[in-house]
């Protein structure tokens, strides 16, 4: 039985290189040069999958990228499983392992097929109707837990791989004069005329061989040569002329300014892939001119049960025969509305396949072709359509309507039905480039018309199908592209074409429009199981726009995007609504043309290369000491440093207590730092920040607040004046880049007259905070050369100095309420300084602490965190920071907005403290604050809990909240309604510890 459907000779496969492969566990044999589809067909296998919705048996329909059915899962190993690959595009290699999809327990015996019996219950829009769940189930979760997953499992394609993709993918940017997409006759001619004119040309084709339709052309002669000989000569010439030739490379997306994205498959066709070899390459080609020679796609025909395995496209059968030496069956019936199927009939007949009948839908078969058919004794039946097919897992025959009245039915046995509804130009790339389309009612095609970018379509994708037209068109397009980029026109001689195939004729919609569609399964879209009746139903339910019909029926969706079917759907919708096809419209063609792997798009941009990890100076030490980390934007920060046996809360309590009682060391390197320098630096900062800074003397610091022009707080930090014209400004961790950008914006565009330079110095300085009553002692231990006396170095001052020869900037500032210093040192010295401090802190009875403790300590003091207490709608007064604003300033960013009516309302959200009545209960951040303990649904909240911690210092829970008119509510009892209880709280001032601030001067 091995390869019993292989011809004795012929085709492009290498019969000296047999390859074994497996399909659903069955070992089969093919040849090098096969696709998986041709190898399966060579073994008589048509049944390759089950349909999406009804689980009907499905076979291979086409020989190319447009195949709606032949989707399989390919597994190389446990991590390399690729679902939804088309059998028609998989190059065979020895040991290839493919499995069918969407069937259980097996492809041949699929229990899901009962869905076919229940088909009347699964109409168009089924998913929209069903996923809502029936109303009688109420808010029950049974639906979402049991039924919905069942439906989702039944309706599906392949399984997504469960492991990270181990392969590597690469990326290349390329520039060229002319990019030619498609290496069929038009593309080859275009590349030739362009390269002869001196253009730098890239030619790509999605297939494993160049040539397009020439690869299976049997009768045409070009310059007296067979198509294959001429093709080989062309490819050689182009290669030696220096054209970049890319096989297995799909131009999947046309983007702005002539950027075309290509996906090149490098190793999927190779049996033994060397380790580390990249699997795919993404080309981002910026072409001065593009020639689209994407060809045309043969259309199916719509008749009842047109989806049985063995029903396929006529030219695909010709391709399997001529290119691969494969017989698609033994006895064929051909149904067509187009001349090209006659070429298939003749080739199949010559190969020994019995052609039982050629049924031409048209009233008149083309006379010249008709006589060739009849001369071979093949039965030709004009004005004939297929009324039905018979069979199960393989078609066994057709029932034909013998004449227009439909009365003269007869059945014909066959094992393949070959159909050709005409040809649809591949206008995808033209359309993606925002080119317009025009409807050609004579040829029944949408063809490219106006273009918006430097591109031309050539050949069959323009609706010109015959060989002489295609060659002339490609040649002209190549010349024109070369001229457009300023090259002289070369005049290569056009090849002389003889015996070319005619592509006249075509049909759209139901083959037999006299028959009712409602009860028959006449499939329009095989991949999504959309029948003609479904489209009619959608229109009956009120959908008119083709975009809506598409979404409701799912016609033209999923991996094939309706390449063989879309025009049928349009024609049926037009027919039902009594409108013309252009009136129905056309759905958008979007990138990608065929599916592209995520790996190709990601390239090397995975893991930390797409999302870089930033680490502060102490990170190696923190990892060595088993810190627990949290991500803060791209930064990885130590959250707490648990001792053995400690949980998060215990670690935080210990760190808090040690800092309040002795000393704590904290890595604040992630704070943004901007150096503002220049004669106008002070003026600039005065205009940006709300503070008055004129009185800020060199050597002093000030807490500063930054607003946006709408008056809302966007950042806070410390402004340290190092000298008259030099300021060191800190920002919050997340705002480092946005604040610098905002400053640049004002400096460049509003106040370009100011002489100021802005420099990000976040990465230059590591910042280590030393906080606590023994901070001076610890700092003095490590840096004995410093004069840390309170009068020499008071709170809110800054010194520039050297620590053991290393420049440093030391701030006396505090985010804990304790005596505190922040030491900035060049980042490379940050780790050793951290180590010295942590050791000194240990000796002094202190410890290092993480962001948990930092948060809790500042909350005890009522210090806000921008983005936690504020949400982009808070003005300074809301969070008790009105005192920061310079009273006599005429202007600063956001000042005018603070005078708006809305900012003077008494019910503005205001920062308050909350104390739970039960001191051990810690509130949930983000919880709502209400006046009633059990407010009725729809009651507006008074505000929200912004920060909540268990305070080790106070041994009770504390919280900060933003509450409407909160300061006037101090002393009131409010509630925090939670799902299980309502928590009573007392409103208090937002400072829980050391309200006078004595400890700062410790």
């Amino acid at each position, binding site marked *: 039985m091995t390869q019993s459907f292989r011809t004795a000779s012929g085709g492009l496969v290498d019969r000296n290189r047999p390859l074994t492969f497996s399909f659903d566990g069955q070992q089969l044999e093919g040849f090098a040069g096969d696709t998986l589809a041709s190898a399966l067909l060579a073994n008589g296998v048509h049944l390759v999958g089950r349909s999406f919705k009804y689980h009907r048996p499905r076979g291979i329909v086409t020989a190319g990228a447009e195949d709606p059915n032949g989707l399989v899962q390919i597994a190389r190993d446990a991590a390399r499983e690729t679902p939804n690959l088309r059998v028609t595009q998989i190059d065979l290699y020895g040991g290839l392992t493919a499995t069918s999809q969407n069937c259980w327990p097996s492809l041949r015996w699929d229990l899901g097929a009962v869905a076919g019996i229940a088909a009347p219950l699964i109409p168009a829009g089924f998913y929209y109707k069903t996923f809502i769940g029936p109303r009688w189930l109420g808010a029950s979760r049974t639906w979402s837990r049991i039924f919905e997953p069942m439906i989702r499992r039944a309706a599906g394609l392949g399984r997504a791989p469960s492991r990270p993709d181990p392969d590597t993918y690469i990326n290349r940017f390329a520039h060229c004069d002319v990019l030619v997409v498609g290496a069929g006759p038009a593309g080859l001619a275009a590349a030739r005329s362009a390269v002869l004119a001196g253009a730098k040309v890239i030619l790509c084709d999605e297939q494993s061989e160049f040539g397009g339709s020439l690869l299976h052309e049997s009768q045409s002669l070009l310059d007296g040569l067979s198509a294959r000989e001429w093709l080989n000569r062309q490819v050689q010439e182009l290669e030696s002329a220096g054209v970049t030739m890319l096989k297995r490379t799909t131009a999947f997306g046309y983007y702005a300014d002539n950027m075309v994205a290509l996906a090149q498959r490098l190793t999927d066709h190779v049996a033994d892939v060397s380790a580390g070899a990249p699997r795919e390459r993404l080309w981002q080609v910026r072409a001065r001119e593009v020639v689209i020679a994407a060809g045309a796609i043969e259309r199916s025909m719509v008749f009842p049960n047109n989806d049985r395995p063995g029903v396929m496209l006529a030219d695909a059968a010709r391709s399997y025969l001529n290119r691969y030496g494969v017989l698609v069956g033994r006895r064929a019936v051909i149904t067509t509305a187009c001349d090209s199927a006659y070429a298939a009939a003749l080739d199949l007949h010559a190969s020994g396949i019995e052609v039982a009948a050629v049924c031409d839908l048209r009233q008149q078969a083309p006379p010249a072709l008709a006589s060739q058919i009849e001369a071979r004794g093949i039965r030709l039946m004009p004005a004939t359509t297929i009324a039905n097919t018979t069979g199960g897992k393989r078609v066994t025959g057709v029932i034909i309507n013998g004449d227009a009245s439909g009365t003269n039915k007869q059945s014909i046995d066959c094992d393949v039905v070959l159909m050709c509804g005409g040809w649809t130009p591949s206008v995808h790339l033209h359309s993606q480039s*925002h080119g317009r389309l025009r409807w050609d009612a004579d040829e029944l095609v949408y063809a490219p018309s106006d273009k918006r970018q430097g591109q031309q379509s050539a050949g069959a994708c323009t609706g010109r199908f015959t060989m002489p037209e295609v060659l002339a068109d490609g040649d002209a397009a190549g010349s024109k592209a070369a001229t457009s980029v300023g090259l002289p026109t070369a005049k290569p001689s056009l090849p002389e074409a003889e015996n070319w195939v005619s592509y006249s004729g075509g049909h759209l919609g139901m083959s037999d429009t006299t028959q009712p569609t409602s009860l028959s399964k006449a499939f329009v879209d095989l991949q999504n199981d959309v029948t003609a009746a479904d489209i009619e139903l959608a229109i009956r339910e009120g959908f008119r726009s083709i975009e809506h019909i598409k979404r409701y029926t799912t016609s033209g969706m999923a991996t094939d995007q309706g390449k063989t079917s879309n025009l049928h759907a349009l024609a049926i919708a037009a027919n039902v609504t009594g409108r013309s096809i252009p009136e129905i419209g056309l759905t958008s063609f979007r990138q990608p043309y065929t599916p592209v792997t995520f790996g190709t798009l990601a390239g090397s941009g995975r893991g930390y290369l797409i999302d870089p990890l930033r680490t502060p100076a102490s990170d190696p030490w923190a990892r060595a000491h088993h810190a627990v980390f949290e991500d803060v934007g791209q930064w990885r920060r130590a959250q707490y440093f648990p001792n053995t046996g400690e949980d998060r809360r215990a670690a935080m309590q210990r760190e808090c207590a040690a800092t309040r009682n002795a000393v704590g060391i904290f890595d604040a390197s992630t704070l943004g730092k901007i150096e503002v320098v220049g004669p106008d630096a002070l003026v600039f900062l005065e205009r940006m920040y709300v503070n008055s800074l004129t009185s800020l003397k060199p050597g002093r610091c000030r807490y500063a607040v930054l607003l946006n*022009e709408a008056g809302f707080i966007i950042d806070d930090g410390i402004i340290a004046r190092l000298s008259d014209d030099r300021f060191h400004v800190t920002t919050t961790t997340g705002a480092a880049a946005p604040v610098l950008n905002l400053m640049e914006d004002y400096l460049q565009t*509003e106040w370009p007259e100011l002489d100021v330079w802005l420099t990000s110095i976040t990465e230059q300085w590591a910042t280590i905070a030393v906080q606590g009553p023994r901070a001076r002692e610890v700092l003095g231990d490590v840096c004995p050369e410093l004069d840390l006396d309170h009068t020499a170095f008071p709170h809110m001052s800054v010194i520039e100095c050297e620590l053991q020869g290393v420049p440093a900037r030391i701030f006396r500032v505090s985010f804990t309420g304790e005596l505190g210093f922040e030491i900035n040192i060049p980042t490379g010295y940050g780790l050793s300084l951290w180590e010295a401090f942590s050791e000194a802190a240990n000796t002094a009875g202190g410890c290092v602490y993480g962001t948990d403790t930092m948060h809790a300590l500042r909350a005890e003091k009522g210090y806000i965190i921008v983005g936690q207490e504020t949400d982009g709608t808070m003005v300074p007064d809301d969070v008790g920071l009105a005192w920061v604003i310079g009273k006599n300033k005429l202007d600063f960013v956001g*000042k005018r907005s603070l*005078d708006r009516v809305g900012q003077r309302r008494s019910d503005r959200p205001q920062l308050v403290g909350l104390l739970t009545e039960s001191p051990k209960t810690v509130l949930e951040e983000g919880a709502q604050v209400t006046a009633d303990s059990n407010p009725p649904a729809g009651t507006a909240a008074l505000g929200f809990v912004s920060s909540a911690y268990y305070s080790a210092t106070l041994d009770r829970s504390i919280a900060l909240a933003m509450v409407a008119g909160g300061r006037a509510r101090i002393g009131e009892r409010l509630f925090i309604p939670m799902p299980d209880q309502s928590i009573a709280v007392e409103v208090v001032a937002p400072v829980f510890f050391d309200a006078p601030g004595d400890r700062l001067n410790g």
Partner: protein
Amino acid sequence: MLLIKCPYCDEDRPELEFHYEGEAHIARPPDPSTLNDEQWAEFLYVRSNSRGPHRERWRHLHGCGRFFNAARNTVTDKFIVTYKQGEHPAIDGDDVEPSP
């Protein structure tokens, strides 16, 4: 991916290097305190939302860092012209006098 000409670098560079910065030629009032709430709200929030040619600000963020202006057609997404601060080249479809 668009190609955008930075008027300072005088180079066509890919869109990825740039950042859109909103409508152009909306100068901050020299003395905001003289504006009433309505005028101030107009400055803060009201934008032309043009269909067709649109004057807008861009920044060559991952290049020279400069802010510049552009006229772009919002229907075709084509840049008509990019220009330095202080310039204001005329384009077809201009009917609005620029603010300073």
